[in-house]
């Protein structure tokens, strides 16, 4: 899993490439949480453009970051989800708490 951060003021964009499963979520969780420790970020944009695969572990991972950012009244947005990624996002009902574009 490849990860890239783009900072624009209070917005942190996280570009994820590859497969987001239980194994890779464990790998990138620490990197992301280290970055969002910085309280200035109140919006996370997770870019799924390069994502080839996601399963329910990936959903759990996104909800985990939502819990962190919600504590400071921040928001999370998911962008560029492909149809197959969208299928599991829709099934999870995650769209009720996270904006999916």
């Amino acid at each position: 899993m490849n990860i890239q951060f783009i900072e624009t003021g209070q917005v942190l964009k996280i570009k994820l490439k590859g497969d987001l499963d239980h194994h890779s979520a464990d790998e990138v969780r620490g990197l992301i949480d280290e970055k969002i420790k910085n309280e200035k970020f109140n919006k996370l944009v997770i870019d799924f453009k390069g994502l080839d695969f996601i399963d329910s572990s990936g959903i759990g991972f996104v909800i985990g970051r939502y819990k962190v950012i919600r504590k400071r009244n921040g928001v999370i947005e998911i962008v560029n989800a492909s149809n197959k990624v969208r299928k599991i996002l829709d099934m999870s009902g995650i769209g009720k708490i996270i904006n999916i574009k």
Partner: protein
Amino acid sequence: MHNNYVYIKIPSLSVNESFTRAAVAAFCSSLNPTMNEISDIKTAVSEAVTNAVVHAYEDEIGEIEIKCMIKGQVVEIIVEDFGCGIVDVERAREPLFTTRPEQERSGMGFSVMESFMDELVILSEKDVGTKVILRKKISEKKQKIINEEILDEKQEDDE
């Protein structure tokens, strides 16, 4: 025609999750599945293997066996572990039920398997292990018609 099958045996290391779903997807390719069908199978297998990796052996490493069979147009995948077992299978099947919320487990695994496959069977016994059976019928596609003349010419060229 003899039914085709493959067996995979792995230690319960999370690094094997991606290998296993890719291997099962590659094995199913002989049925000429659509991209959506392959994506569904990969996701369901990933859920079943991840469950075994996360839950079966606590902090130990145990073995997981994956058996994949093609029976006509149906793919049957059995993911089996020999770990702690599931005490209450009905409860485990409930959407969003998880015993590990602190590990960011979403509790969606069995729901995903159920909705992405045609059939999900869970057999489990405490301290013996868990067997998850997934079945999916792959839609039959129209075969490409090969121009026989071109084929004949090619055979002559080969000779």
